[in-house]
């Protein structure tokens, strides 16, 4: 009986472990393994061990631009894009969460429900919706801007390098914002009211209360949430793929888009081995950033 009771937790956890091994560990192992081989979908039977050659290729492949390797260019874009998008999500997320937490906002329960909608829509669908919303001829945004006489001709959001980069970043922020708001809102609700009451009695301004009470107590939630958002945003593919396919030229070709291109489209230059090396580099980078974040988070909690 005791043996059976001891066995139960392992039996219960077994399906999860199996699923984790099949869907997470095995693919990860295959990526690590492939990164040391010259392999391509174009020639499935040909597979040669090349050691670190694929990792050297990351810095040597300069066919498209002699100044930067294809990988370094995509990585730089990714860092800028992820930084911008997560930044928007954090700042706006805190602002909207504070607004939704305010007792002076009428109908805040309705807003709290509405705010989750973008998160509930599949990302590819959201991207399609935004592609038409921002369209220069039929888009709602241009229609409003023109009717309010803010612009005198349609704005083409996705047609220059800079505007496409910013637009895709903002759309990504729109998709990810609800999660941030909900998390920050739950964090705000856990802050005791008496702290604010005491601060009010001491004559603290709203800004002082925000800086001295809200931000420090919200810090663990901000760090956890932004870490999750950072990982998701780094892996974001659908939004850019639907809106610009990495264009114009290669202005929005972030690392996930570049990995896809190397694996499937630029097969004669790249292939699955090199795409795996790019993936390994991304996973390593994201892991390093995550470890740094977690350490910061621990310090934050100790405070």
């Amino acid at each position, binding site marked *: 009986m005791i043996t059976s009771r001891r066995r139960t937790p392992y039996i219960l956890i077994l399906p999860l472990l199996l699923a984790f091994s099949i869907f997470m560990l095995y693919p990860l192992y295959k990526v690590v393994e492939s990164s040391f081989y010259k392999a391509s*979908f*174009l*020639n*499935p039977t040909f597979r040669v061990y090349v050691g670190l050659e694929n990792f050297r290729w990351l810095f040597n492949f300069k*066919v*498209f631009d002699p100044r930067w390797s294809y990988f370094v260019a995509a990585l730089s874009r990714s860092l800028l894009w992820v930084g911008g998008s997560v930044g928007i999500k954090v700042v706006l997320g805190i602002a909207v969460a504070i607004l939704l937490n305010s007792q002076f906002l009428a109908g805040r329960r309705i807003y709290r429900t509405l705010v989750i909608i973008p998160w509930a829509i599949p990302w590819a669908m959201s991207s399609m919706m935004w*592609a038409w919303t921002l*369209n*220069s*001829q*039929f888009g709602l945004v241009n229609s409003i801007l023109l009717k309010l006489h803010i612009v005198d*001709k*349609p704005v*083409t*959001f*996705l*047609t*220059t*390098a800079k505007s496409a980069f910013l637009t895709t970043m903002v759309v990504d922020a729109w998709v990810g914002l609800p999660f941030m708001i909900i998390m920050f809102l739950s964090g705000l609700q856990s802050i005791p009211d008496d702290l604010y009451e005491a601060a009010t009695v001491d004559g603290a301004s709203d800004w002082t209360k925000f800086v001295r009470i809200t931000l420090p107590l919200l810090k663990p939630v901000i760090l956890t949430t932004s870490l999750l958002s950072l990982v998701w945003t780094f892996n974001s593919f659908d939004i850019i793929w639907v809106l*610009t*396919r*990495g*264009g*114009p*030229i*290669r202005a929005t070709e972030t690392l996930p888009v570049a990995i896809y*291109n190397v694996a*499937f*489209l*630029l*097969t*004669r*230059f790249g292939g*699955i081995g090199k795409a795996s090396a790019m993936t390994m580099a991304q996973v390593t980078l994201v892991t390093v950033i995550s470890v740094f974040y977690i350490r910061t988070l621990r310090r934050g909690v100790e405070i």
Partner: protein
Amino acid sequence: MRKLLCVVTVMAVFLMGVAMAEEVLKVLMPIGGGYTIEDQEAIAREFEKDNPGVKIEMEFVGWAELWNKIITSIGAGAAPDVMYIASRWIPVLADMGAIIPLDEYITPEKRELYYDMVWDTVTYNGHVYGVVRAMSTKVFIYNKKLFEENGVKIPTTWDELLEAAKKIHNPTKGIYGIAMAGKRFVSTVTQFLQYLYANDGRIVDEKGNVVIDKPNAVRALEFYKELSSYAQPGIIEWTREDLIKLFETGKVGMYIDHVHNALKAIEKGVDVGFFLIPGGPDSVKRYSTVIVTDCIAISSQTKKKDLALKFMNYMTSFEKQAEWDLKLGFVPPMVKEKDLPEFQKWYWKPYIEAIKYGYPQSAGVKDWEGTQEVLLDAIQSVLLGQGDAKTALSQAARIIKILQK
């Protein structure tokens, strides 16, 4: 326990019986762009009816994911027996050994059914690798009302084409001379190829040399850029597939597209006319068009080659082909199809006439997907004014030469 064992045994025997009774043929088909699951399933069911004991298992994938699906399933050793592919993928798939040459299975009667040009689109290194299932030529669709209002005649040269776009273009009223594509997508490359081929330019010549940087190609890209001055703003955000939405509004003078999209515009009340794509200044040809085909290919991994060939021939029989072309609004690849009553209608004539001026979309190109990426960089950089056509195409030629090795 015994009861359970009995049930399991009976079920296993039953399932084995079912499995043994049916020969399953796996077929990969696209959806989207007019291709529906229902239409394609109907063909499978008809074939099963005529061939008892055969089960056609169709797998459907969106056009945008079809290439990835094909190469990943081949890589995993699980390729479908029959694959619907874009003919431009044949060189890569043939070099991989992923599809079988079909020369010995194409009877002289079957060969005679199609235009010679059609076979060129599925031939690589002297071997036929597919049987064409869908073909398109394209011509200019124009808005007769806008042409008349602006006193524009049907253009027969590039100068006249530019002049026509210029005369109609009135962006303050939301009217555009021409609708053009510039988004990163295959159809943007094909739209540029319309002008490239019209000016007697090529990506790769008959001898396999990369000639995309030759003066006639440079002139074609310069013209594409010049013409874009009279197109809708922000053409970089448009694919050719989306342009119909703009043309349907009645505010676009002309654009290059399929007949089935022209019919949509007619339904919306636009007074539509057609004219063939005029030859460029460096070409002796009067007109031009890009011939795009999709075909049925057979996987080299299939263990049911005979059945696969039978299904391929069934799908591409004269009756089934004609039925398919009429249903989807594709240009007939078989010579005799043009004599069918439906193809006598006025809107079909320019598309059928264009066949004789056609040139295959990917002639001589060994790696279409890579080449497409490189050409998109060149087209977009010129459209955005980041480089001139000569520099952009020199850069493209340098990279395509590597891809052609």
